[in-house]
């Protein structure tokens, strides 16, 4: 390979990077987020005050981590609706742990929380791959089962943030370079998983599976094993989010995390991950999560009725799907053109 060719390769490589960046589905979402922040801060300049920004970051943190895990699952053409219940179980478990063993080391709590979540996620994965029933149905079932277990375990009991060690609660208060510690955790998760999905073979396999499961099987990809791994990872990340939830919020009990799964699926879809699998990135899912949680803050800051918040989320989901359709119609047209050329 001569040097001239190499430099040519590099040039096209760089050009490719820019092109694929601009083509990405994340761009419209990120644009919407920036526009939202600009408009809101014009109406109410206090929206960008340090305290307000910190609150925005804290509010987005939990959903970001959940969205990353959910994106892994959705990319494989599955879905995990039980994450709200898993988060509740782990959060309540965390409270219980601190209550029973006040001196338990905080890193151990994180490890246990993630293992607990991973076990619950693996159960989902095993059921989905062995039963050959859509994940929507399986995880709808485990959602109720996990919630039922939590309800009978917690009863009317609640653990309050005051019961936890102060260093644990401090994770959601202390900042590093102006960023809350738990938000840094979320950022690390996004980058690590995003890198995995982009640059590791098994990460690419997940895209292949979601793009065409039958072709993946023909190609000799271990489809079941990869799908189970995606559910496991989603469960572990939900476990992480559950521990952080306990640090962030005042109380955990039987209803913790109730209904959260739909917010998360909405964030992932808005972030450009196709619900039919195969496309999208965890970065997009994370931006979607930030967008949805920022809307709440923005509407409060501009004194818009809370009612509109949900309607706007709905509009965002529909526009995300619309964008998706337009893209696929365009490529269908391209197909017709290229076939006409062949004739």
């Amino acid at each position, binding site marked *: 390979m001569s040097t001239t060719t190499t430099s040519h390769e590099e040039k096209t490589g760089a050009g490719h990077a820019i092109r694929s960046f601009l083509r990405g589905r994340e761009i419209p979402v990120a644009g919407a987020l920036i526009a939202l922040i600009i408009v809101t801060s014009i109406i109410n300049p206090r929206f960008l005050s340090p305290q307000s920004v910190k609150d925005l970051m804290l509010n987005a943190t939990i959903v970001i981590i959940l969205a990353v895990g959910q994106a892994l699952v959705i990319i494989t053409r599955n879905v995990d609706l039980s994450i709200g219940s898993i988060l509740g179980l782990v959060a309540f478990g965390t409270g219980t742990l601190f209550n029973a063993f006040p001196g338990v080391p905080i890193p151990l709590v994180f490890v246990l929380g993630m293992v607990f979540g991973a076990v619950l996620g693996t159960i989902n994965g095993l059921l989905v791959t062995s039963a050959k029933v859509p994940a929507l149905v399986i995880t709808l079932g485990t959602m109720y089962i996990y919630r039922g277990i939590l309800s009978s375990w917690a009863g009317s009991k609640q653990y309050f943030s005051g019961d936890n060690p102060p260093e644990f609660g401090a994770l959601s208060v202390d900042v590093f370079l102006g960023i809350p510690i738990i938000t840094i955790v979320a950022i690390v998760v996004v980058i690590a998983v995003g890198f995995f999905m982009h640059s590791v073979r098994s990460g690419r396999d997940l895209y292949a599976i979601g793009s065409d499961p039958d072709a993946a099987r023909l190609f000799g990809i271990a489809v079941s094993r990869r799908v189970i791994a995606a559910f496991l990872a989603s469960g572990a990340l939900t476990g992480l989010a559950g521990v952080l939830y306990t640090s962030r919020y005042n109380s955990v009990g039987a209803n913790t995390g109730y209904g959260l799964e739909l917010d998360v699926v909405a964030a992932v879809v808005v972030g450009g991950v196709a619900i039919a699998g195969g496309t999208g990135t965890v970065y997009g899912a994370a931006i979607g999560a930030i967008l949805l949680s920022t809307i709440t803050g923005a509407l409060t800051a501009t004194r818009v009725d809370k009612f509109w918040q949900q309607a706007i989320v709905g509009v965002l989901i529909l526009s995300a799907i619309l964008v998706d359709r337009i893209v696929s119609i365009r490529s269908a047209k391209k197909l017709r053109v290229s*076939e006409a050329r062949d004739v």
Partner: protein
Amino acid sequence: MATDTNPATPAGTPKTAGSTGTSALSLTGASKTFGPVVALADGTIDIRPGEIHALVGENGAGKSTLVKILAGLYVPDGGDFKVDGQSVAFKTPADSKAAGISVIYQEPTLFPDLTVAENIFIGRQPTGRGGLINRREMRRQARELFATLGVPIDPDRIAEGLSIADQQIIEIAKAISLDARVLVMDEPTAALSGVEVERLFGVARALREKGAGILFISHRFEEVFALCDRITVMRDGKYISVHTTADVTVPEIVKEMVGRELGALFPKEVAEVGETVLSVSNLNRAGVFSNISFDVKAGEIVALSGLVGAGRTEVARAVFGVDKYDSGTVSMFGKPLKAHSPQAAIAAGIGFVPEDRRKQGLVMELSVAKNATLTLRNTLARFGLISGKRELRAAEDWSKRLQVKTASQDYAVSTMSGGNQQKVVLAKWLATEPKLLIVDEPTRGIDVGTKSEVHRLLSDLAGRGIAIIMISSELPEVLGMADRILVMHEGQISAEIARDDATAELVMNAATAATTTEPIKGAVR
């Protein structure tokens, strides 16, 4: 990992070309059955390194089953399977791939959302430091592969929207990068134009020079004879013969492909032919079929013959109104039929029994009774409600007439055998008392016994004055059942053959257009 880092060089170390000592791949006496259906009785093929080997046979001769065994998709029930002289037993496609077998299917199997480069290298992308994917290297290798193949495809574009020809090229690039010792191509030229076919042949010959064994499946004899060193013939799931191409002629091969006794299996009785029921004139649909004109008369069975993909089903679907057509007219009893309206077609008395019973003909989870009377809901309903008792009675009546074997009318259709399912579909349409019945592959996947029952039934219906269009890929069925045969080739009717003139060779030639230069004997067109 050596092949991972440099998969772009086809066959890194050239194997001794043409060494005839051991076979690259040999399959002997392989069999595969699905319940009562024997898909493959004696699958035998021997591919030497450095040869291009053709596998020919009619539709349903067992070629696809044999390919699926080679690909590791089916585990054979019996037989001997060796790769490079070593016995193998593939359980998954991954096993087959690991043994150096690459299969290019008729329908390319790409991942629509992934880039072209990634489609080639998925699961074995070139990696750099820390096992991370080196995308630049991956693109470079993909570009190099396309340069070898002489096709400029952008490795960065996603596979969705690529033409079939380009998708085929990507499959080939994939096979080359895998450094396959045996490359199986299942009708790779079906969707390619002349230039693309030449390009593909160039690639195949280059691979042969490098010592790979290639199995080439095609219906086009001119291709088989131009490209292949040896030819294996299959018929009825059995190995028939293997020839060196130079020592054999097209008529000899055709004879071996079709040669079999036409027995009492197809009891078509001559029925009185009445008035014209359906008349189709100049039906066109761009890229699918063109200039389709034909009539069907009462009491007549007209077979639409031809190869899979010739456009037979598409014509039938257009006539029935499921699919659109661009121009032309469809008339029933002289009255033009509204285009693209199955409701109008049903109202005019057309019944349509689709090829894929599971997908289009039956609601698998419903009971026999519900399925059989699905098309009758309007006549059975009283005040908008359907009486279960009336439904059951109508279903029982037809099931009895068709001899559907089921313990109870309440059983879900999915529990029944293919033959009985087919009878339920027929019952469903016969209950509407059609004037014209279109049946698409009426006996596919049905055991021999039930087959002749279905044939008896069709013959019986024709005798009652129903006009029948039968689409069939099975030559004996076509020859035995049809009063007239319309042969389709690449979207056009290439021959119309009367029952008395019809021979297997004539139909086969018209279907493959092997003798396009000389007029087809007995052909009206």
